[in-house]
Protein backbone atom coordinates (compact mmCIF):
# COMPACT_ATOMS: atom_id res chain seq x y z
CA UNK A 1 0.00 0.00 0.00
CA UNK A 2 2.80 2.28 0.85
CA UNK A 3 4.40 1.49 -2.38
CA UNK A 4 1.23 2.31 -4.27
CA UNK A 5 0.87 5.48 -2.42
CA UNK A 6 4.41 6.39 -3.30
CA UNK A 7 3.64 5.57 -6.95
CA UNK A 8 0.58 7.80 -6.99
CA UNK A 9 2.43 10.47 -5.25
CA UNK A 10 5.19 10.37 -7.78
CA UNK A 11 2.77 10.17 -10.66
CA UNK A 12 0.84 13.06 -9.33
CA UNK A 13 3.99 15.05 -8.82
CA UNK A 14 4.97 14.34 -12.39
CA UNK A 15 1.62 15.34 -13.73
CA UNK A 16 1.52 18.36 -11.59
CA UNK A 17 4.93 19.61 -12.77
CA UNK A 18 4.22 18.73 -16.40
CA UNK A 19 0.97 20.62 -16.35
CA UNK A 20 2.20 23.68 -14.48
CA UNK A 21 5.89 24.15 -15.75
CA UNK A 22 5.55 23.24 -19.43
CA UNK A 23 6.93 26.56 -20.85
CA UNK A 24 9.86 26.43 -18.42
CA UNK A 25 10.71 22.91 -19.51
CA UNK A 26 10.51 23.92 -23.16
CA UNK A 27 12.81 26.86 -22.44
CA UNK A 28 15.23 24.49 -20.71
CA UNK A 29 15.14 22.14 -23.67
CA UNK A 30 15.74 24.98 -26.07
CA UNK A 31 18.59 26.20 -23.95
CA UNK A 32 20.11 22.73 -23.88
CA UNK A 33 19.76 22.29 -27.62
CA UNK A 34 21.20 25.72 -28.40
CA UNK A 35 24.03 25.09 -25.92
CA UNK A 36 24.84 21.80 -27.59
CA UNK A 37 24.67 23.46 -31.01
CA UNK A 38 27.00 26.20 -29.81
CA UNK A 39 29.46 23.62 -28.49
CA UNK A 40 29.36 21.68 -31.76
CA UNK A 41 29.88 24.89 -33.76
CA UNK A 42 32.75 25.95 -31.52
CA UNK A 43 34.31 22.52 -31.84
CA UNK A 44 33.94 22.50 -35.61
CA UNK A 45 35.34 25.98 -36.00
CA UNK A 46 38.24 25.36 -33.66
CA UNK A 47 39.22 21.98 -35.09
CA UNK A 48 40.46 23.14 -38.51
CA UNK A 49 42.28 26.02 -36.81
CA UNK A 50 44.06 23.59 -34.58
CA UNK A 51 44.90 21.36 -37.50
CA UNK A 52 45.85 24.02 -40.00
CA UNK A 53 47.75 26.35 -37.71
CA UNK A 54 50.31 24.49 -35.67
CA UNK A 55 52.25 26.57 -33.19
CA UNK A 56 56.01 27.20 -33.45
CA UNK A 57 56.91 24.20 -31.27
CA UNK A 58 54.60 21.95 -33.35
CA UNK A 59 56.41 23.00 -36.52
CA UNK A 60 59.73 21.96 -35.00
CA UNK A 61 58.33 18.71 -33.61
CA UNK A 62 56.97 17.77 -37.01
CA UNK A 63 60.21 18.68 -38.72
CA UNK A 64 62.29 16.75 -36.15
CA UNK A 65 60.08 13.73 -36.51
CA UNK A 66 60.60 13.57 -40.29
CA UNK A 67 64.32 14.22 -39.87
CA UNK A 68 64.56 11.38 -37.39
CA UNK A 69 62.69 9.08 -39.74
CA UNK A 70 65.10 10.01 -42.51
CA UNK A 71 68.06 9.29 -40.22
CA UNK A 72 66.67 5.95 -39.11
CA UNK A 73 66.03 4.86 -42.69
CA UNK A 74 69.18 6.50 -44.01
CA UNK A 75 70.78 3.39 -45.51
CA UNK A 76 67.55 2.01 -46.88
CA UNK A 77 66.56 5.29 -48.52
CA UNK A 78 69.94 6.44 -49.79
CA UNK A 79 70.64 10.08 -50.55
CA UNK A 80 67.84 10.44 -53.11
CA UNK A 81 65.30 8.79 -50.84
CA UNK A 82 66.23 11.05 -47.95
CA UNK A 83 66.01 14.05 -50.26
CA UNK A 84 62.51 13.03 -51.35
CA UNK A 85 61.37 12.37 -47.80
CA UNK A 86 62.68 15.69 -46.49
CA UNK A 87 61.62 17.88 -49.39
CA UNK A 88 57.93 18.35 -48.45
CA UNK A 89 58.60 19.01 -44.76
CA UNK A 90 61.41 21.48 -45.50
CA UNK A 91 59.25 23.33 -48.02
CA UNK A 92 56.44 23.39 -45.45
CA UNK A 93 58.49 24.36 -42.38
CA UNK A 94 61.07 26.85 -43.69
CA UNK A 95 60.46 30.38 -44.95
CA UNK A 96 62.65 29.58 -47.95
CA UNK A 97 61.75 32.65 -49.96
CA UNK A 98 62.51 34.95 -47.02
CA UNK A 99 65.74 33.09 -46.25
CA UNK A 100 66.92 33.25 -49.86
CA UNK A 101 66.21 36.98 -49.87
CA UNK A 102 68.14 37.48 -46.62
CA UNK A 103 71.01 35.26 -47.72
CA UNK A 104 72.04 37.53 -50.56
CA UNK A 105 71.54 40.62 -48.39
CA UNK A 106 71.24 43.90 -50.19
CA UNK A 107 71.83 42.27 -53.57
CA UNK A 108 68.37 40.68 -53.58
CA UNK A 109 66.79 43.95 -54.61
CA UNK A 110 69.01 44.16 -57.65
CA UNK A 111 67.77 40.85 -59.00
CA UNK A 112 65.16 40.58 -61.73
CA UNK A 113 62.03 38.56 -61.06
CA UNK A 114 63.16 35.55 -63.10
CA UNK A 115 66.59 35.64 -61.44
CA UNK A 116 64.94 35.62 -58.03
CA UNK A 117 62.80 32.64 -59.00
CA UNK A 118 65.77 30.72 -60.36
CA UNK A 119 67.85 31.53 -57.30
CA UNK A 120 65.04 30.51 -54.93
CA UNK A 121 64.81 27.17 -56.72
CA UNK A 122 68.56 26.57 -56.40
CA UNK A 123 68.59 27.79 -52.79
CA UNK A 124 65.73 25.43 -51.88
CA UNK A 125 67.42 22.45 -53.53
CA UNK A 126 70.71 23.29 -51.78
CA UNK A 127 68.95 23.49 -48.38
CA UNK A 128 67.26 20.11 -48.85
CA UNK A 129 70.43 18.54 -50.26
CA UNK A 130 72.43 19.75 -47.26
CA UNK A 131 69.99 18.09 -44.85
CA UNK A 132 69.84 14.89 -46.89
CA UNK A 133 73.64 14.69 -46.96
CA UNK A 134 74.36 15.75 -43.40
CA UNK A 135 71.79 13.61 -41.60
CA UNK A 136 72.89 10.39 -43.20
CA UNK A 137 72.83 7.89 -40.36
CA UNK A 138 71.35 6.94 -37.05
CA UNK A 139 73.14 6.03 -33.84
CA UNK A 140 70.38 6.24 -31.26
CA UNK A 141 69.82 10.00 -31.46
CA UNK A 142 66.58 11.53 -30.31
CA UNK A 143 65.17 15.01 -30.61
CA UNK A 144 63.65 16.90 -27.74
CA UNK A 145 61.75 20.16 -27.99
CA UNK A 146 62.62 21.86 -24.73
CA UNK A 147 61.11 25.32 -24.67
CA UNK A 148 59.43 28.08 -26.61
CA UNK A 149 60.10 31.74 -25.91
CA UNK A 150 59.01 35.06 -27.34
CA UNK A 151 57.72 36.46 -29.55
CA UNK A 152 60.39 39.13 -29.60
CA UNK A 153 60.01 41.49 -32.54
CA UNK A 154 57.77 38.88 -34.12
CA UNK A 155 60.26 36.06 -33.72
CA UNK A 156 59.62 33.02 -31.54
CA UNK A 157 62.57 30.90 -30.43
CA UNK A 158 62.13 27.16 -30.00
CA UNK A 159 64.93 25.30 -28.28
CA UNK A 160 65.36 21.79 -29.56
CA UNK A 161 68.07 19.34 -28.55
CA UNK A 162 69.58 16.44 -30.38
CA UNK A 163 70.57 13.87 -27.81
CA UNK A 164 73.05 11.19 -28.71
CA UNK A 165 73.73 8.37 -26.24
CA UNK A 166 76.95 8.85 -24.24
CA UNK A 167 77.52 12.25 -25.81
CA UNK A 168 76.80 15.89 -25.04
CA UNK A 169 73.52 17.09 -26.45
CA UNK A 170 73.54 19.77 -29.14
CA UNK A 171 71.20 22.73 -28.80
CA UNK A 172 69.36 24.08 -31.83
CA UNK A 173 67.65 27.43 -31.41
CA UNK A 174 65.01 27.63 -34.12
CA UNK A 175 63.81 31.13 -34.96
CA UNK A 176 60.28 31.21 -36.33
CA UNK A 177 58.21 34.02 -37.75
CA UNK A 178 54.52 34.07 -38.62
CA UNK A 179 54.13 34.46 -42.36
CA UNK A 180 50.84 34.12 -44.22
CA UNK A 181 49.24 32.98 -40.97
CA UNK A 182 51.75 30.18 -40.58
CA UNK A 183 54.79 29.77 -38.33
CA UNK A 184 57.88 29.21 -40.42
CA UNK A 185 61.56 28.71 -39.60
CA UNK A 186 63.64 31.71 -40.62
CA UNK A 187 66.93 30.86 -38.92
CA UNK A 188 68.70 28.26 -36.79
CA UNK A 189 71.35 29.10 -34.22
CA UNK A 190 73.91 26.63 -32.93
CA UNK A 191 76.72 27.52 -30.48
CA UNK A 192 75.78 31.15 -30.93
CA UNK A 193 76.18 30.94 -34.70
CA UNK A 194 73.26 32.02 -36.86
CA UNK A 195 73.10 29.80 -39.91
CA UNK A 196 71.37 32.51 -41.88
CA UNK A 197 74.08 35.07 -41.08
CA UNK A 198 76.73 32.48 -41.88
CA UNK A 199 75.13 31.77 -45.24
CA UNK A 200 74.81 35.45 -45.98
CA UNK A 201 78.46 36.15 -45.15
CA UNK A 202 79.49 33.50 -47.68
CA UNK A 203 76.97 34.42 -50.37
CA UNK A 204 77.73 38.14 -50.19
CA UNK A 205 81.47 37.45 -50.34
CA UNK A 206 81.02 35.26 -53.43
CA UNK A 207 78.76 37.83 -55.13
CA UNK A 208 81.23 40.63 -54.41
CA UNK A 209 84.27 38.77 -55.62
CA UNK A 210 82.95 36.45 -58.28
CA UNK A 211 79.49 37.68 -59.21
CA UNK A 212 75.97 36.40 -58.71
CA UNK A 213 76.04 33.83 -61.51
CA UNK A 214 79.05 32.21 -59.93
CA UNK A 215 77.20 31.89 -56.62
CA UNK A 216 74.34 30.05 -58.31
CA UNK A 217 76.86 27.84 -60.13
CA UNK A 218 78.68 27.08 -56.85
CA UNK A 219 75.40 26.09 -55.20
CA UNK A 220 74.54 23.77 -58.06
CA UNK A 221 78.01 22.24 -57.86
CA UNK A 222 77.52 21.67 -54.16
CA UNK A 223 74.17 19.95 -54.77
CA UNK A 224 75.80 17.69 -57.35
CA UNK A 225 78.65 16.90 -54.97
CA UNK A 226 76.17 15.96 -52.24
CA UNK A 227 74.30 13.73 -54.64
CA UNK A 228 77.44 12.03 -55.94
CA UNK A 229 79.26 11.77 -52.66
CA UNK A 230 76.39 10.62 -50.57
CA UNK A 231 74.42 8.45 -52.99
CA UNK A 232 74.18 4.98 -51.47
Amino acid sequence: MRAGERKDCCYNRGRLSRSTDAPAVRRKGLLLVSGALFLVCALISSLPAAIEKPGPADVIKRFNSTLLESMKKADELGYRGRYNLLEPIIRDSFALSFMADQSVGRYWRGLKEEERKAFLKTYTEWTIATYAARFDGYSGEKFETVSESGPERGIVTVLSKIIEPEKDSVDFYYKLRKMDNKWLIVDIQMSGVSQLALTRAQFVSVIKNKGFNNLAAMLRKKIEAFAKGKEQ
Partner: protein
Amino acid sequence: MKTRFQGNGSGRQTAGRCFEKISLGLVLMFFLLLPVIVYAETPSSSGAKEGAVAGEAGPGGADISKKDGADVTDAAAEKETGPEEIAPEESIPDPLEPWNRAMFTFNDRLYFWVMRPVSKGYNAVFPEPVRVSVNNFFSNLSTPVRFVNCLLQAQLKCAGIELARLSVNSTIGFGGLFDVARYNWHMEKQDKDFGQTLGSYGIKDGFYIIWPFLGPSSLRDTVGMVGDGYLTPWDYLTPWYNAAGADAGNYFNENALTIDDYKDFKESAIEPYVALRDAFFQHRQSLYKKE
Protein backbone atom coordinates in the same frame (compact mmCIF):
# COMPACT_ATOMS: atom_id res chain seq x y z
CA MET B 1 108.76 12.33 -19.90
CA LYS B 2 109.61 14.57 -17.01
CA THR B 3 106.50 16.20 -15.77
CA ARG B 4 107.44 17.95 -12.62
CA PHE B 5 105.97 21.20 -11.50
CA GLN B 6 108.50 23.77 -10.57
CA GLY B 7 107.70 25.37 -7.26
CA ASN B 8 110.95 27.30 -7.42
CA GLY B 9 114.35 27.26 -9.10
CA SER B 10 115.62 27.63 -12.61
CA GLY B 11 112.75 25.87 -14.37
CA ARG B 12 110.21 28.51 -13.51
CA GLN B 13 112.69 31.21 -14.44
CA THR B 14 113.17 29.59 -17.85
CA ALA B 15 109.42 29.35 -18.35
CA GLY B 16 109.05 32.92 -17.18
CA ARG B 17 111.70 34.09 -19.63
CA CYS B 18 110.00 32.16 -22.41
CA PHE B 19 106.67 33.86 -21.67
CA GLU B 20 108.35 37.23 -21.37
CA LYS B 21 109.81 36.76 -24.85
CA ILE B 22 106.45 35.74 -26.30
CA SER B 23 104.69 38.62 -24.58
CA LEU B 24 107.34 41.09 -25.73
CA GLY B 25 106.96 39.77 -29.27
CA LEU B 26 103.21 40.19 -29.14
CA VAL B 27 103.43 43.69 -27.70
CA LEU B 28 105.88 44.64 -30.44
CA MET B 29 103.58 43.09 -33.03
CA PHE B 30 100.65 45.00 -31.57
CA PHE B 31 102.46 48.32 -31.97
CA LEU B 32 103.68 47.43 -35.43
CA LEU B 33 100.16 46.56 -36.46
CA LEU B 34 98.55 49.52 -34.72
CA PRO B 35 98.24 51.56 -37.91
CA VAL B 36 96.54 48.56 -39.53
CA ILE B 37 94.10 48.29 -36.60
CA VAL B 38 93.24 51.94 -36.89
CA TYR B 39 92.75 51.50 -40.60
CA ALA B 40 90.57 48.43 -40.05
CA GLU B 41 88.31 50.16 -37.56
CA THR B 42 87.62 53.23 -39.71
CA PRO B 43 84.24 53.38 -41.45
CA SER B 44 85.90 52.81 -44.83
CA SER B 45 87.27 49.46 -43.67
CA SER B 46 86.98 46.03 -45.26
CA GLY B 47 83.23 45.92 -45.81
CA ALA B 48 83.02 49.22 -47.64
CA LYS B 49 86.23 48.47 -49.48
CA GLU B 50 84.92 45.14 -50.68
CA GLY B 51 81.80 46.87 -51.90
CA ALA B 52 83.94 49.19 -53.96
CA VAL B 53 85.79 46.25 -55.44
CA ALA B 54 82.48 44.69 -56.44
CA GLY B 55 81.57 47.84 -58.26
CA GLU B 56 84.81 47.60 -60.21
CA ALA B 57 84.00 44.18 -61.67
CA GLY B 58 85.01 43.79 -65.28
CA PRO B 59 82.65 44.00 -68.26
CA GLY B 60 80.51 41.02 -68.94
CA GLY B 61 80.95 39.89 -65.39
CA ALA B 62 78.03 38.53 -63.45
CA ASP B 63 78.35 41.09 -60.69
CA ILE B 64 74.77 42.12 -60.02
CA SER B 65 75.77 45.33 -58.29
CA LYS B 66 76.77 46.58 -61.74
CA LYS B 67 74.26 44.78 -63.89
CA ASP B 68 71.16 46.73 -63.04
CA GLY B 69 72.73 50.12 -62.74
CA ALA B 70 71.85 52.80 -60.27
CA ASP B 71 69.05 51.00 -58.45
CA VAL B 72 71.42 48.42 -57.08
CA THR B 73 74.31 50.53 -55.87
CA ASP B 74 75.48 49.44 -52.44
CA ALA B 75 74.52 52.72 -50.81
CA ALA B 76 70.99 52.66 -52.14
CA ALA B 77 70.56 49.03 -51.27
CA GLU B 78 71.92 49.69 -47.79
CA LYS B 79 69.15 52.20 -47.19
CA GLU B 80 66.52 49.77 -48.35
CA THR B 81 67.53 46.99 -46.00
CA GLY B 82 65.72 47.67 -42.79
CA PRO B 83 63.20 46.05 -40.51
CA GLU B 84 62.93 42.98 -42.72
CA GLU B 85 66.46 41.94 -41.82
CA ILE B 86 66.78 39.27 -39.20
CA ALA B 87 70.49 39.70 -38.43
CA PRO B 88 72.36 42.81 -39.46
CA GLU B 89 75.07 42.45 -42.05
CA GLU B 90 78.38 43.06 -40.31
CA SER B 91 81.76 43.54 -41.85
CA ILE B 92 84.63 41.81 -40.10
CA PRO B 93 87.98 43.60 -40.16
CA ASP B 94 90.36 41.35 -42.04
CA PRO B 95 93.30 43.50 -43.11
CA LEU B 96 95.65 40.49 -42.99
CA GLU B 97 93.55 38.51 -45.45
CA PRO B 98 96.48 37.34 -47.65
CA TRP B 99 98.32 36.00 -44.57
CA ASN B 100 95.11 34.56 -43.16
CA ARG B 101 94.22 32.81 -46.39
CA ALA B 102 97.71 31.29 -46.53
CA MET B 103 97.39 30.11 -42.91
CA PHE B 104 93.90 28.81 -43.61
CA THR B 105 95.31 26.69 -46.43
CA PHE B 106 98.20 25.56 -44.21
CA ASN B 107 95.87 24.51 -41.37
CA ASP B 108 93.44 22.95 -43.81
CA ARG B 109 96.19 20.76 -45.29
CA LEU B 110 97.57 20.02 -41.85
CA TYR B 111 94.10 18.79 -40.89
CA PHE B 112 93.47 16.63 -43.96
CA TRP B 113 97.02 15.37 -44.48
CA VAL B 114 98.21 14.89 -40.91
CA MET B 115 95.72 15.51 -38.12
CA ARG B 116 92.79 13.57 -39.50
CA PRO B 117 94.62 10.36 -40.47
CA VAL B 118 96.66 10.36 -37.25
CA SER B 119 93.55 11.08 -35.17
CA LYS B 120 91.71 8.23 -36.86
CA GLY B 121 94.52 5.89 -35.79
CA TYR B 122 94.58 7.37 -32.29
CA ASN B 123 90.80 6.99 -32.02
CA ALA B 124 91.05 3.37 -33.15
CA VAL B 125 93.56 2.59 -30.40
CA PHE B 126 92.06 4.63 -27.58
CA PRO B 127 88.31 4.23 -27.07
CA GLU B 128 86.21 7.35 -26.58
CA PRO B 129 85.89 7.08 -22.77
CA VAL B 130 89.70 7.17 -22.51
CA ARG B 131 89.90 10.25 -24.75
CA VAL B 132 87.13 11.93 -22.77
CA SER B 133 89.00 11.23 -19.54
CA VAL B 134 92.21 12.71 -20.94
CA ASN B 135 90.22 15.77 -21.95
CA ASN B 136 88.66 15.96 -18.47
CA PHE B 137 92.08 15.73 -16.88
CA PHE B 138 93.46 18.68 -18.85
CA SER B 139 90.25 20.61 -18.37
CA ASN B 140 90.45 20.12 -14.61
CA LEU B 141 94.08 21.23 -14.59
CA SER B 142 93.20 24.41 -16.47
CA THR B 143 90.67 25.47 -13.82
CA PRO B 144 92.85 28.47 -12.81
CA VAL B 145 92.26 29.99 -16.26
CA ARG B 146 88.50 29.88 -15.86
CA PHE B 147 88.48 30.68 -12.14
CA VAL B 148 90.65 33.82 -12.47
CA ASN B 149 88.73 35.03 -15.51
CA CYS B 150 85.43 34.56 -13.66
CA LEU B 151 86.85 36.80 -10.91
CA LEU B 152 88.23 39.33 -13.39
CA GLN B 153 84.75 39.54 -14.88
CA ALA B 154 83.32 39.96 -11.36
CA GLN B 155 81.24 36.80 -11.68
CA LEU B 156 81.43 35.28 -8.24
CA LYS B 157 78.95 32.49 -8.87
CA CYS B 158 80.96 31.39 -11.88
CA ALA B 159 84.15 31.42 -9.79
CA GLY B 160 82.41 29.43 -7.06
CA ILE B 161 81.27 26.79 -9.54
CA GLU B 162 84.79 26.42 -10.91
CA LEU B 163 86.20 26.07 -7.40
CA ALA B 164 83.58 23.48 -6.48
CA ARG B 165 84.20 21.60 -9.73
CA LEU B 166 87.92 21.51 -9.03
CA SER B 167 87.38 20.15 -5.51
CA VAL B 168 84.86 17.51 -6.59
CA ASN B 169 86.60 16.37 -9.76
CA SER B 170 90.08 16.30 -8.22
CA THR B 171 88.88 14.05 -5.41
CA ILE B 172 85.82 11.99 -6.32
CA GLY B 173 86.66 12.32 -10.00
CA PHE B 174 90.10 10.67 -9.59
CA GLY B 175 92.31 13.65 -10.24
CA GLY B 176 89.97 15.12 -12.81
CA LEU B 177 89.68 12.05 -15.02
CA PHE B 178 85.92 12.02 -14.51
CA ASP B 179 83.67 15.06 -14.63
CA VAL B 180 81.62 13.99 -11.62
CA ALA B 181 80.66 17.58 -10.84
CA ARG B 182 78.86 17.91 -14.14
CA TYR B 183 77.13 14.55 -14.31
CA ASN B 184 76.17 14.23 -10.66
CA TRP B 185 75.69 17.83 -9.55
CA HIS B 186 74.98 19.58 -12.86
CA MET B 187 77.86 21.99 -12.35
CA GLU B 188 78.73 22.97 -15.91
CA LYS B 189 82.21 24.07 -16.90
CA GLN B 190 82.33 27.87 -17.15
CA ASP B 191 83.95 28.71 -20.45
CA LYS B 192 85.87 31.85 -19.53
CA ASP B 193 89.11 33.09 -20.97
CA PHE B 194 91.16 36.24 -20.96
CA GLY B 195 89.97 37.23 -24.42
CA GLN B 196 86.42 37.35 -23.04
CA THR B 197 87.62 39.29 -20.01
CA LEU B 198 89.20 41.92 -22.25
CA GLY B 199 85.97 41.98 -24.24
CA SER B 200 83.96 42.54 -21.06
CA TYR B 201 86.18 45.58 -20.39
CA GLY B 202 85.08 47.01 -23.71
CA ILE B 203 88.19 46.15 -25.72
CA LYS B 204 87.26 45.46 -29.34
CA ASP B 205 88.29 42.40 -31.34
CA GLY B 206 90.82 44.32 -33.38
CA PHE B 207 91.07 42.23 -36.49
CA TYR B 208 90.91 38.64 -37.61
CA ILE B 209 94.03 36.53 -37.56
CA ILE B 210 94.62 32.85 -38.26
CA TRP B 211 97.57 31.26 -36.49
CA PRO B 212 99.30 28.19 -37.85
CA PHE B 213 98.28 25.10 -35.83
CA LEU B 214 96.05 27.14 -33.50
CA GLY B 215 93.46 28.31 -36.01
CA PRO B 216 91.23 31.38 -36.04
CA SER B 217 91.60 34.19 -33.53
CA SER B 218 91.46 37.95 -33.22
CA LEU B 219 94.07 40.39 -32.02
CA ARG B 220 92.35 40.66 -28.64
CA ASP B 221 91.95 36.90 -28.27
CA THR B 222 95.60 36.40 -29.19
CA VAL B 223 96.61 38.68 -26.34
CA GLY B 224 94.08 36.76 -24.22
CA MET B 225 95.73 33.49 -25.19
CA VAL B 226 99.06 34.71 -23.80
CA GLY B 227 97.35 35.83 -20.59
CA ASP B 228 95.74 32.40 -20.22
CA GLY B 229 99.14 30.81 -20.78
CA TYR B 230 100.32 32.31 -17.48
CA LEU B 231 97.42 30.60 -15.73
CA THR B 232 97.84 27.20 -17.34
CA PRO B 233 99.75 24.97 -14.89
CA TRP B 234 101.38 22.67 -17.44
CA ASP B 235 102.90 25.65 -19.22
CA TYR B 236 105.24 25.89 -16.22
CA LEU B 237 106.72 22.47 -16.93
CA THR B 238 110.40 22.36 -17.65
CA PRO B 239 112.28 21.94 -19.84
CA TRP B 240 110.16 23.89 -22.32
CA TYR B 241 109.51 20.90 -24.55
CA ASN B 242 107.59 19.20 -21.74
CA ALA B 243 105.24 22.17 -21.61
CA ALA B 244 105.00 22.18 -25.39
CA GLY B 245 104.39 18.42 -25.36
CA ALA B 246 101.58 18.77 -22.84
CA ASP B 247 100.05 21.57 -24.90
CA ALA B 248 100.31 19.50 -28.07
CA GLY B 249 98.88 16.43 -26.35
CA ASN B 250 95.90 18.35 -25.02
CA TYR B 251 95.33 20.03 -28.39
CA PHE B 252 95.59 16.76 -30.27
CA ASN B 253 93.31 14.81 -27.92
CA GLU B 254 90.71 17.57 -27.93
CA ASN B 255 90.70 17.68 -31.72
CA ALA B 256 90.56 13.90 -31.99
CA LEU B 257 87.27 13.97 -30.07
CA THR B 258 85.65 16.12 -32.72
CA ILE B 259 87.78 15.16 -35.68
CA ASP B 260 84.99 15.08 -38.26
CA ASP B 261 83.49 18.44 -37.31
CA TYR B 262 85.83 20.46 -39.51
CA LYS B 263 85.32 18.09 -42.46
CA ASP B 264 81.52 18.41 -42.15
CA PHE B 265 81.81 22.16 -41.76
CA LYS B 266 83.96 22.43 -44.88
CA GLU B 267 81.70 20.17 -46.90
CA SER B 268 78.67 22.31 -46.07
CA ALA B 269 80.39 25.62 -46.73
CA ILE B 270 80.27 27.48 -50.00
CA GLU B 271 83.21 29.71 -49.11
CA PRO B 272 85.02 27.90 -46.25
CA TYR B 273 87.43 30.75 -45.45
CA VAL B 274 84.60 33.28 -45.04
CA ALA B 275 82.42 30.73 -43.23
CA LEU B 276 85.14 30.01 -40.65
CA ARG B 277 85.81 33.71 -40.09
CA ASP B 278 82.14 34.52 -39.67
CA ALA B 279 81.45 31.51 -37.43
CA PHE B 280 84.45 32.40 -35.24
CA PHE B 281 83.29 35.98 -34.67
CA GLN B 282 79.65 35.02 -34.18
CA HIS B 283 80.61 32.38 -31.63
CA ARG B 284 82.92 34.69 -29.71
CA GLN B 285 80.33 37.46 -29.70
CA SER B 286 77.68 35.07 -28.40
CA LEU B 287 79.96 34.36 -25.42
CA TYR B 288 80.19 38.07 -24.54
CA LYS B 289 76.46 38.54 -25.02
CA LYS B 290 75.74 35.71 -22.60
CA GLU B 291 77.36 37.65 -19.79
